[in-house]
């Protein structure tokens, strides 16, 4: 009678001593460990049986939680290199399991095109999604933006915007598109796109990422306006952003991604952060 009692109390005591460091260890594990190993979709498809859709949602959630954690850490100014290939792999697995999962396409568009710089992958996924979600105007809308903004393929972009307009029943996208189908409208196009998405977003992590990007582009727009004013005034392009600040045309811009804005020789505004958090060295998004 005494031995079990002793065992119960002592094990409970040691458990209480252990649980703190244990939880701490789990919390501080590297992100790649937290995102975890996910078997290939071929294996998942077999094991998931009639729970493929849930498994797909689970994978997307996993990526989203991971991404949410990253955004939070960046806020606290902890430099963490996100593991984009792992995220991309999970998203690909998700759409293999459930080709209809909109969250997966949406997230892929949000991350792959901007943060990873793999617009080709994002477009591939969007095309994949359009085969299934034949009723959905958002997919062609994203694809249209990608082609216009990133690839400057205005003809293809118009086709996608056209389709988005037909599916949504709004001519808005068609009309809007026309205005931005040129180099000069790029920044405004991006701001428009981002603020539309930002308003409709309820997931805080994603919303935060839109807000950051929106701030960055608003900064770019400010610089562009100052640049154009400088050109009007002096008849030539400014040499640097500092010049604009010295002339009193601009208050110093801040890159929310931690980079520095600069002017390219042709006068285009760029930033050392490339509008993304630092990527893991040498990491490439997984190829499908």
């Amino acid at each position, binding site marked *: 009678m005494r031995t079990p009692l002793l065992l119960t109390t002592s094990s409970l005591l040691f458990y209480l001593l252990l649980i703190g460091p244990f939880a701490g260890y789990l919390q501080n594990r590297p992100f790649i460990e937290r995102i975890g190993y996910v078997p290939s979709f071929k294996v998942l498809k077999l094991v998931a*049986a009639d729970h493929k859709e849930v498994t797909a949602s689970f994978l997307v959630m996993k990526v*989203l939680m991971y991404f949410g954690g990253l955004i939070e850490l960046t806020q606290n100014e902890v430099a963490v290199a996100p593991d984009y290939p792992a995220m991309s792999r999970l998203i690909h697995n998700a759409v293999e399991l459930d080709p209809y999962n909109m*969250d997966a396409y*949406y997230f892929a568009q949000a991350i792959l095109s901007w943060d990873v710089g793999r617009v080709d992958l994002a477009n591939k996924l969007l095309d994949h999604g359009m085969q299934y979600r034949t009723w959905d105007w958002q997919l062609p809308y994203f694809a249209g933006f990608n082609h216009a903004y990133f690839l400057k393929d205005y003809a293809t972009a118009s086709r996608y915007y056209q389709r988005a307009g037909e599916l949504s029943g709004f001519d808005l996208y068609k009309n809007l598109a026309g205005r931005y189908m040129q180099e000069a409208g790029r920044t405004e196009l991006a701001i428009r796109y981002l603020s539309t998405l930002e308003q409709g977003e*309820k997931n805080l992590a994603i919303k935060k990422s839109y807000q950051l990007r929106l701030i960055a582009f608003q900064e770019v727009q400010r610089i562009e306006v100052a640049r154009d004013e400088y050109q009007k005034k002096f008849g030539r392009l400014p040499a640097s952003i500092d010049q604009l600040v010295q002339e009193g045309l601009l208050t110093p811009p801040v890159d929310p991604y931690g980079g520095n804005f600069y002017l390219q020789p042709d006068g285009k505004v760029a930033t050392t952060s490339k509008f993304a958090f630092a990527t893991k060295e040498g990491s490439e998004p997984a190829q499908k």
Partner: protein
Amino acid sequence: MTSMISVTLKGIFRDRVFQGILMTALIFLLIPTVSLLSMRQVTELSITLALSLNSLIFLLLSVFLGGTMLWKDIERRYSYGVLGLPMTRSSYLAGKFAGVALFFLLTAIVLGAATFVVVFFASSLYPPERPVQWEIIALCLFFDVMKYVLLVAIAFLFSTLSTSFFLPVFGTIAIFLAGGATQQVYDYIHSTAGDTLTPLVKQAASGLYYLLPNFSAFDLKVNAIYGLSTSFSGLLLTIGYFLLYTTFILSLAALIFSRREMR
């Protein structure tokens, strides 16, 4: 046989299986909250979660209720008394099976109601872009029940083959996984990717495809979640497949059970 059915049903209810289901069904309460994690498809996620929870409950029921139904009767020696009555072994088996099937149907009605409430609630929080197709959700539930009733028949077949409960329980799980995968394997070997396989492997895989139950036909989750239309003739064929396959498995089980020695 009707008295066997009612005795079986009483047994299931008095063993508190239904209470167990209701406890598990409390998870339904979490679904609307979890669905809010979705960025673009809150309603769709709530349907996904609810349907998957239903499937999970039915899977557990099929394996642990269906798989231990006969084993328990024999292990606890109830079968001596019952089979000593002027009842054929076949009608004993059929009565037990019908009892479980009926219980599944009742459970489906309750869980279906829970599903509808949860999805309705989630869709009122964030109205989906496309209206929820309630009739497809109901259809999906109905076919899910059919699938798991078929699985119970397989569990019964395993129970007649073995005196322990290991074969019924693990055999049923194995068949469940295999039955969900056969269509994929079949599609794979008949695609260009399958050309590298030897003819023998192809034939063996095709043979298994025709032998094993095809559970993917009963899976209408994608249709229910995204409101995709279903093929009427395809569903009719699936119902026919269910009836024939279940009858075949059950009669085989009855054949084996009739020869079984009740030592």
